[in-house]
């Protein structure tokens, strides 16, 4: 590298942090230059967030920096006085956290919150600070900034709140921005907008940015260099381009591999699958939804929100349909109507030829054995006070003829099926990892050998490798059981790996549907194109490659 050493903004030198006797960061070293975006990637528990907090010397109470140093412009932040540290945080190094809405004070307008940060660091009059805040709002892509500055956090959308937090991080003119999973939970299209803007602003001002994430797509698209963290260490640190081409560490290649799409949904090429791969409309679909409608009354006024507004689709035996769309598109509501967690307000649901739309719960009960659902967030969908065996056995009670020993045997079978050790039968949900919880959720749904399963966001919020494992597991199970499935997701990458057909939803309507390959290759609707463009592939863009070349040239 030709970079001049005076360019180094932030220098982390053999940093070790421990919680009690347990080291959580172990000998971490890296440096960040002016006008550089460094990506830090790792799975849950790798120590990414602790690293971010150590950089501003704001560790949780039990944490302590055991050895090493963090220098900003050559000056150690660990020896600073509390007053200097206050100036450092937000003034020199700013952090952008996850879930912007919870980071903002709910009882103060966002404009004055941002203005207050500026006055705390740079002084000046209230009016000037407010003006500066409004100017910056415009620069971070907030439309109608003057009006929005008067808004309270709850009046903003998630993406808008995230922009406010970015403005807050930038207003005092820091040298380094730390984005700790800053776009987690935002829709893909919003995520791209927010990151584009963040990175663009950093480049304009020549700031150093650290993007902490578990999404390798983000790294490939935005970062100049990438550090892979595992168990509190940096296992690999190199320019992004070279990392993507040839990762050195085995762990890095595993991660890369797990994050990439494994194309071809089963499409009939599975060995031993007697289903014909012909995509022609099957004679009699297992599930047929016609003009489904579901309205929600809005609080305050009598106007109803058309969450699902005339949705029709069919799912044949052994087929998988993915329902994709951004949050608020009505995809989850549609799924909940199918399993009768919600009662539809219009339309028909035909299951195996029978109209189940308006069956009372007692008559629908026999169908519960055949229609199951895997819930989105694995932890909250499991009763915290039930052990795993009871959780898995619960749906088996739908069959009153089953004896206690049969049930116990079936629980063991199911644990085996989702590749969990039998000894987990006695464990409670909080003792399991997110991946294990997800598997329990899947085991529950499959307990009664259903014909049709609704998977609600099966891959969201999972670590890279766990996500790949869950995708593989679902694919295997589908092949073995000839299951029909509806996938509700915004993770397009997983759609490519799992679904035969895709239906794109927006504002409660299906805007486009068809075979997965076709939709991804030749989307017809503009909205679908926008949605697909927001998916960040795990490869460098042209612009990013050119930038890398320019940097190398100095």
């Amino acid at each position, binding site marked *: 590298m030709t970079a001049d050493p005076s360019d180094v903004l932030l220098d982390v030198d053999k940093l070790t942090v421990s919680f009690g006797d347990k080291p959580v960061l172990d000998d971490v070293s890296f440096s960040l230059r002016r006008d550089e975006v460094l990506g830090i990637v790792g799975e849950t528990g790798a120590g990414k967030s602790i690293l971010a907090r150590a950089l501003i010397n704001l560790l949780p109470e039990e944490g302590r920096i055991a050895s090493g140093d963090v220098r900003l412009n050559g000056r150690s932040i660990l020896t600073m006085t509390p007053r200097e540290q206050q100036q450092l945080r937000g003034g020199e190094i700013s952090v952008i956290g996850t879930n912007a809405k919870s980071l903002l004070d709910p009882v103060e307008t966002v404009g004055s919150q941002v203005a207050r940060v500026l006055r705390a660091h740079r002084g000046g009059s209230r009016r000037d600070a407010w003006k500066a805040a409004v100017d910056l709002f415009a620069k971070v892509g907030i439309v109608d900034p003057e009006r929005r500055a008067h808004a309270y956090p709850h009046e903003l959308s998630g993406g808008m709140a995230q922009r406010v937090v970015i403005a807050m991080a930038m207003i005092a003119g820091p040298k380094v921005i730390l984005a700790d999973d800053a776009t987690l939970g935002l829709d893909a299209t919003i995520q791209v907008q927010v990151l584009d803007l963040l990175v663009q602003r950093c480049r304009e001002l020549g700031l150093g940015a650290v993007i902490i994430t578990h999404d390798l797509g983000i790294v490939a698209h935005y970062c100049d260099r990438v550090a892979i963290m595992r168990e509190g260490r940096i296992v690999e640190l190199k320019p992004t381009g070279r990392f993507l081409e040839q990762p050195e560490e085995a762990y890095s290649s595993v991660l890369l591999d797990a994050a990439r799409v494994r194309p071809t949904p089963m499409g009939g090429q599975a060995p031993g699958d007697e289903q014909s791969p012909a995509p022609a409309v099957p004679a009699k679909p297992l599930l047929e939804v016609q003009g489904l409608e579901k309205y929600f009354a809005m609080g305050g006024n009598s106007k109803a929100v058309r969450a699902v507004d005339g949705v029709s689709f069919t799912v044949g035996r052994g087929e998988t349909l993915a329902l994709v769309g951004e949050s608020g598109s009505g995809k989850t509501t549609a799924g909940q109507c199918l399993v009768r*967690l919600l009662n539809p307000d219009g339309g028909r649901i035909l299951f195996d030829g029978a109209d189940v739309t308006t069956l009372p719960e007692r008559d629908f*009960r026999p169908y*519960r*054995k055949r229609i199951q*659902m895997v819930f989105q967030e694995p932890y*909250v969908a499991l*009763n915290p006070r039930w052990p795993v065996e009871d959780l898995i056995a619960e749906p088996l009670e739908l069959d009153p003829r089953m004896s206690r020993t049969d049930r116990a045997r079936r629980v063991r079978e199911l644990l085996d099926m989702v590749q969990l050790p039998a000894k987990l039968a006695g464990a409670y949900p909080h003792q399991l990892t997110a991946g294990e919880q997800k598997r329990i959720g899947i085991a529950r749904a499959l307990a009664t050998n259903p014909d049709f399963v609704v998977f609600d966001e099966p891959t969201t919020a999972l670590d890279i490798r766990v996500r790949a494992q869950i995708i593989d597991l679902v694919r295997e199970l589908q092949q073995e059981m000839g299951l029909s499935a509806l996938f509700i997701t915004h993770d397009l990458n997983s759609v490519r790996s799992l679904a035969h057909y895709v239906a794109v939803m927006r504002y409660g309507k299906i805007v486009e549907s068809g075979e997965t390959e076709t939709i991804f290759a030749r989307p017809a609707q503009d909205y679908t194109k926008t949605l697909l463009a927001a998916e960040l592939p795990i490869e460098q863009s042209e612009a990013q490659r050119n930038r890398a070349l320019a940097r190398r040239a100095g």
Partner: protein
Amino acid sequence: MNSPNLLAFVMRRPAALAGIVLLALQIAAIIFAPLLATHSPVEADPINSLQPPSLAHWFGTDVSGMDIYSRILFATRVNLLISISAVAIAFAIGVPIGLLIGYYRGTVSSLVMRVFDFIQSFPVFVLGMALVSVMGQEIWNVAIVLAVLFIPMFARLIRAEVLSLRERPFISAARCSGATDRSIMFRHILPNALTPAIVQISISIGMAILLTAGLSFIGAGVRMPTPEWGLMVSIGAQQMILGVWWVSLFPGLAIVISVLCFALLGDAAKDLSDPTTRGRQ
């Protein structure tokens, strides 16, 4: 949580330990009252009326010459019996009501809530006096009055929990797995909703002791010669200005100790039920 953990938990909290010691003292008083008492708790001895504390009468005697120490010992039985049974009745009735009105929301549920509003908006002593004067000044009637007062408290606590629990995804998941309303209520919601009510038990017993004493003090509780702390304070109050301090002071201290004991135990129970203060395994 197993017993060594519980022991460690208590040892780390002096307040909890103090609560347990005080509870042990009261239990000892209940069981061994006949052995520990120096006199009969209900026999008047007018010759020895208003004796100051002495070797014969450790805490002195009251206006009818009854031994205050012995009466305090025996009153522990009466007071704790009233308080604990009142809270037990309130818990047994309030919890199912709270569960039902939280789970099934409708006209009946709102009606029940308005009844609770009515009970709770009444000044406690006015309500207590009215009920006791209708039903008679018996120990059990006092317990029932207190139970009526406490039922809304338990029902509201449970209802609040149920309202938030019923929207949790694991309830939807259970419904998809074919769980019936009854199964969802009793197997899924109730075990998760019970913790705050259990913590409330101990605090309520303390409140019940105070209310029992208060009712007796204003003459709406149990009647003489039944040994009861509030009643004893009340009798002594008339002589207080004459410098006869012991008649009221000692039963008053008993009330303080007993209420404090259950308050400490309630705090400990709260800590125990909160994973953030207990520390996860």
